């Protein structure tokens, strides 16, 4: 392969990283054995790590709690003759007392473990009732914005100071015009496969959770935040969190929300999509409450007809 020169080293490394993450994702989707092996690895670590130090597999931790909750009063005696007799005498002498104490502690531990199990079952049943995780894939993911939206976003942010981050960037449609205009911009999307074409064409796109990326941002880290895709299905509490975190991340900058209006969805989309989503008008209201200057900017995209532009300066 051709060696990249120093000037495009960063783009080359970005591309390699994106290809690695896409390849890992492709293999994981194609080969269930890999998923099983990763679960086995995680399970093995949880088995040897102290409670609370590893993983989030509650069932395994509860099994462990079950085993650890029983205190055995029969301390080992060892094999050396003299020591064994001495330990045996001590054990006999204090056995009745230790038995009395450990019976109480064991009873308490047993109750606590049962309570934890009930609690775990209760959470599981609530999750089942909410059926949050089960409907993924029944409806198509929202399509990426078209070029008209990208040009509108670029014109809003063209002269903007500071780095721009596009959350939910997909293949980089919203990133491209900003990048071409010389704006320092990167995109983040949870789909490692979706970003690959954009990375290969030289865009700075990163695989990761957009919401986590925003939550981890330092105060004033960005000049502007553009949120698309992942914001389509947020409920009120999650949306409010995005508003607060975006405002903190841009300081005196600008936040752009690119989302369709839930009222425009057809009946299947409306009923099967995981979250209900907020309309541009509601997003504008949430930003307006914070004191931001909010504009609703029209675009030529029939789905993303209105962009919410909140200026904090």
């Amino acid at each position, binding site marked *: *392969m*051709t060696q990249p020169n120093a000037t495009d080293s960063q783009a080359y490394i970005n591309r390699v990283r994106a290809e*690695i*993450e896409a390849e890992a994702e492709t293999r994981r989707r194609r080969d269930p054995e890999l998923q099983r*092996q*990763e679960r086995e690895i*995680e399970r093995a670590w949880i088995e040897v790590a102290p409670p609370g130090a590893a993983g989030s597999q509650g069932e395994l931790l509860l099994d462990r709690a079950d085993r650890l909750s029983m205190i055995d009063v029969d301390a080992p005696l060892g094999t050396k003759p003299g020591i064994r007799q001495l330990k045996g005498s001590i054990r006999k002498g204090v056995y009745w007392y230790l038995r009395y104490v450990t019976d109480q502690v064991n009873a308490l531990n047993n109750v606590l473990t049962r309570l934890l199990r009930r609690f775990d079952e209760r959470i599981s049943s609530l999750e089942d009732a909410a059926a949050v995780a089960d409907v993924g894939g029944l409806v198509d993911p929202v399509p990426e914005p078209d070029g008209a939206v990208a040009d509108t976003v670029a014109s809003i942010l063209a002269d903007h100071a500071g780095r721009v981050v596009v959350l939910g960037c997909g293949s980089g449609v919203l990133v491209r015009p900003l990048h071409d205009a010389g704006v320092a911009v990167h995109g983040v999307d949870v789909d490692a496969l979706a970003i690959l074409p954009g990375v290969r064409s030289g865009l700075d796109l*990163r695989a990761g959770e957009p919401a986590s990326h925003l939550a981890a941002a330092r105060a004033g880290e960005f000049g502007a935040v553009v949120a698309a895709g992942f914001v389509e299905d947020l409920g009120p509490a999650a949306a409010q969190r995005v508003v607060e975190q975006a405002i903190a991340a841009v300081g005196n900058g600008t936040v752009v929300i690119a989302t369709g209006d839930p009222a425009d969805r057809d009946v299947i989309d409306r009923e099967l999509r995981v979250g209900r989503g907020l309309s541009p008008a509601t997003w504008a209201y949430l930003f307006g409450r914070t004191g931001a200057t909010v504009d609703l900017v029209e675009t030529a995209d029939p789905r993303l007809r209105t962009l919410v532009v909140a200026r904090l300066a």
Partner: protein
Amino acid sequence: MSSVDLLVPELKSGDAIGAHTLLLRDVFVAQGATVRFVAQQPSSMNEDVLLVSAWKKPGDLIVLQHGIGSLLAEAVIKRRLPAVLNYHNITPPEFVEAWDADHIAGLRWGRAQLHQLAPLAPRAVADSQYNANELIDVGFADVRVAPVLWNVRKGNDRQVDHDAPVILFVGRVAANKCHHDLIAALAALTTTHPTARLVVVGSPASESYQRALDAFAKRLGVGGHVDFVGAVDDATLAAHLANAAVFLCLSEHEGFCVPVVEAMAAGVPVIAYDAAVLSETVGDAGILLGDKTPHAVATAVARVLDEPGLEQHLIDRGRQRADDFSLAVSSKAHRAAFDGLVAR
């Protein structure tokens, strides 16, 4: 001529903060200052050290090395001395609390002391922007960045056995450095590269963590592929670096990560989890991963092992990047960071 008191918990060999403090002395001496070390305990190196209990009259400039709670910081706080803080970061206790109940008190103490030191410090100097950001968040007003002073060695000629590739990590065996993720990645890698081995250089900071790692490797069937070699001398470390096909760092928390710089200087391709300071130290000279699930890491390692063009790029770019942290460059950065504080 200024007198400078360098406050360091302990001056000992093989310790990054100790080595940094010795080199910082050279920076001040070159500017005409007289320097003395103030420590909590006598030095195991052949250096004159004034114990903090005997430290009565402070020098014109006080520089406190801070990487854990210390009696030195306590003395500065109690006497309300205007000490410049030289910050190397403190491991957040939550990373190690399940493993090291004894150790977390010092970590919590150190972080609490930061809040008390902030109003006293005329300036703070941090190893990295990542560390500097922590200080700014705590309330330090004047924070400068200068990379840790370290005599970065170029390393020996590479002697990599591509038929039995060695994945190397160097660092204390502590939970925040996530050696268990290295072992998990090795287990995934051996499905495609069955002869791959993991070599870990560094002393165990936690016996319970070390025991769990040994058991974990055994359970995954890669116990025979993992070598914990402990702390080693410089020559042995150079040999390990020369043999390494890849330097793999999956730490959750690092404040600077000298071993990554040493690996780059020695021409070892670096793959690292993109957390804490790593993106700042590695830059574009290594592969940073946003996902450290075993097969994602194994895919990255396999890619470097199997693609000579990429391997060579990482080697070349890594050597250039290591030059950014050479002693000459870091010394210059420290002169600038302490500018105006040392009277000639």
